């Protein structure tokens, strides 16, 4: 299955999946992690991803969809290169999460589940992310930013813009501008994202 010609994943991810399946007493246990890792690389769970995952696990596509649609981190449409997830649950709400969320909306000009026109950012209001004592907190892809105020927002966005190589005036047009190919095949921009994801520790 790791045969490059047969998979839509990068060789590294395909090899990881080969190992993942053997890790558990039953291969089906690999399903949820596999979907998440596939999404990390491809950007979302396209039909093609679902079909390949179904084949790798040895279950029907219907079963994969039954499971995938249950988990809220899994998505079926592309998100921005940087998916900004603002927790507004109680602890964060009490310390100003909605103000932070509103500031993100203003700065990005998008609402819940929106994507910026350049495809760089998407925004989401999410449930508790386990950072209640450092509220309000957000996650950008898997990166936490905590103890925020609305004033932090422009800086955070600027950080990611420069990480993506966009000059502050936004003049440079990049590969990711095209967004995710509708067939879900891997574009360079997305791969870079998956690698640029390395969390801080």
């Amino acid at each position, binding site marked *: 299955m790791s045969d490059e010609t047969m998979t839509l994943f990068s060789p590294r991810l395909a090899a990881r999946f080969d190992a993942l399946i053997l890790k558990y007493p039953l291969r089906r246990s690999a399903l949820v992690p596999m979907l998440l890792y596939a999404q990390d690389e491809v950007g979302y769970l396209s039909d093609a991803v679902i079909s390949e995952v179904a084949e790798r696990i040895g279950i029907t596509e*219907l079963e994969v969809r*039954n499971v995938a*649609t249950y988990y809220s981190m899994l998505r079926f449409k592309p998100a921005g290169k940087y998916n900004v997830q603002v927790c507004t649950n109680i602890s964060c709400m009490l310390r100003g999460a909605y103000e932070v969320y509103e500031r993100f909306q203003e700065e990005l000009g998008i609402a819940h589940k929106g994507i910026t026109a350049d495809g760089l950012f998407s925004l989401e209001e999410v449930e508790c992310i386990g950072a209640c004592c450092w509220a309000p907190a957000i996650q950008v892809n898997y990166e936490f930013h905590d103890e925020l105020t609305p004033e932090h927002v422009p800086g955070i966005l600027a950080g990611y813009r420069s990480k993506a190589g966009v000059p502050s005036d936004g003049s440079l047009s990049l590969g990711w501008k095209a967004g995710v190919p509708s067939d879900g095949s891997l574009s360079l921009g997305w791969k870079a994202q998956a690698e640029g994801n390395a969390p801080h520790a």
Partner: protein
Amino acid sequence: MADVTFIVDGKKLTAPAGTLLIDACRKAGIEIPAFCYYPGLSLQAACRMCVVRQEKVPKLQTACTTTVAEGQVFITESPEIAQARKSTIELLLGNHPLDCPVCDAGGECELQDMTFKYGAGESLYAEAKEHREEQQWSPAVYFDRPRCILCYRCIRMCGEGMDVWALGVQNRGVSSVIAPNGGDQLDCEQCGMCIDVCPVGALTSGSYRYKTRPWEMNHVSTVCTFCADGCKVTLGVRQVNDGSEIVRADNRDKSGINGDFLCAKGRFGFDFVESPERLTKPLVRNSQGKLEPATWEHALRFAASKLKEIRDSKGGASIGVIGSNRTTNEENYLLQKFARTVLQTNSIDHVRSTDYAALARALAGHNCKTASLRDIATAPAILLIGGNPTEEHPLLAWNLRTNVRLNRARLYIANTKPIKLERQAKAALRLPADGYQAIPAYLGGSDDTIKDTAFREAVLAEESLVVVFGQEYRGQAVESLVAWGLKRGPNSGSVRFAFLGDHANSRGAADMGLLPDLLPGYVPVTAPGAFQEYPGLPATPGKTLPEMFEAAGKGELGALLVVGANPVASLGVDPAALKNTFVIVQDLFLTETAALADVVFPAASLYEKSGTVTNTYGDVQLAKKAADRAGVKPDFEILVRLAGAMGVDVKTLVPFGKDGVTADLGQSRGAQAGEADRHAVWLAANNLEPRLSPFDPLAVLDEIERLVPGYTLDRINLFGGNDVRTEPGFVPITALKEAASALVAPAHDGLFTSGTLGRYSPALKELEQHQARELAESAAD
């Protein structure tokens, strides 16, 4: 498990330990409401309707998951419980569209019934309801999401019951939704079982939706006319201008041989009855050689006089008779009696779907060696040889799956190709293309062409076994297989057989003597035994079906009477062969055979008449008249009238009435046709004699029971709508001539086809086309 005693609502109940409380209560007549619980399917505990109070337990418990143990005390109805159930319904109704007035399930909806019972009528919900368009998932299945209460019955029925797994749940929480496997399409066997189990109107049938209200229908349970398993089917019938029409077929009456089951043909195929191509007037070929409508009287008189003339001039042997695989036992019996005693010919045959005569011969003298369809649902071990029951015998496949799932029965499959049922099999033996003949020797240990000894050992280790086999076995092969079973030790009583044929009454056609050499009950015409009472019974075997056409081709067949068969199409007969033969056809449609006839009589379908049919396992069931069509007559009546028109004393054919009593022959006229049948059923049910009408098939059933070996029927059960057994092994003869196995022409029907008849069902045709498209699409993927 040992019995335990426990108390429910103050009543002492006893049940095996570990029985589900809900089942134990239902058995004792204490009804506990449930949406998600469905007997035989996996437990969900999702709807929370079955809550009961158990002594010493703090929370209400779900009766659907509580297993009974000694000394427990339960309360199943109390204000607290009623309140809990009421609030569950309130919650459900909050988001429910409440479109009962236009919902198909209105009047037979479990949610409606519960709302009524627990009085959750007042709406506490102020928010706007979410509207969603209903979806068409396939020609057969529609889904109306807002009505769905998420009981998961459909998913389980499709997966656990049908082993199709085409339905799932997607999303979570209040967004949860039942989803089909093809995105917005249902790619499955189209059995419609999901519609049947849906307690509300979320899943509806393509052919029934928005047609009528349940209370406007009469519900008649009868026997399906398609395959040879013989499911009980409930027909919903509504009065229309020219009789009464069938608007729905389902499995409301779960008491039948099929329990919960009904397949696509049984459920959707009934619409052939309403086909605009139905014949409703007799046709007679005019002087220009064209078939034109005629009155019954003219057609009957014409046909009768021709038959009489040919018999009297050329002799009975020059007349051939071909019977049907779908007509009732009484009709088949009458047909052969008419052929033999009136037409004076033994040249009677039918399109044989399997070699029942060989089975009868093999089992001659042995009783209780055949398995009923019910036995297959409970037998601890089954050996299935050949065939593909999933397609050809859907109920058999259901019983096998259910038996494996619920009783851990062991299924062994020997087949030349892989079949779906192997998923349930304990072991599967792959045979070479011509491998079936070797099986008896293989099982007996004297064959070494089949290498898999583990399979044999596993089969032989079984204490008792039901061997299910089909048309792969004919003649001598049947005898060797049966012989292996009969002499297998140590407990040789332990092997039983089921022999698979096609169509609703193929077995009845053979059992009732639609054979040139055998009388009813496989009694040789050469040694007619009790049938000696037939006046003028010809003593030599007549022509087989191919021989009749051969004779016709040579100009030696004066007349041919075809009842409900289409040999021209099914056997590929050259139409020219019949040029010089006077042909009478009784049929529903102008089939390829009828088109060649000189006289065509429009016949009633199985759904428009009463009588008994015998499924391929030998289970006899009562078919009840459901619908009515102006202009047509049951084959039984047509035969009686034909005989009458030939000047025969009808009483010698149908022993009706008491001596000296004559009945009004006109009592079943026009739109009232069939009245006599219904009357007869009533008479029989009340054990009343005599049969007053010559059109009363029950009068013939009396004679069948009297003369046909093996057909001593349990009448109370038969008329109560249950299946009863007949035993072909009872044939008291040994040396029978082996019929040419070439005569067997199996139908190889699939899920949506059924011989000529199936071609006239728009619903089945649509399903077949849909399926072909799906197949093409998935192949293109």
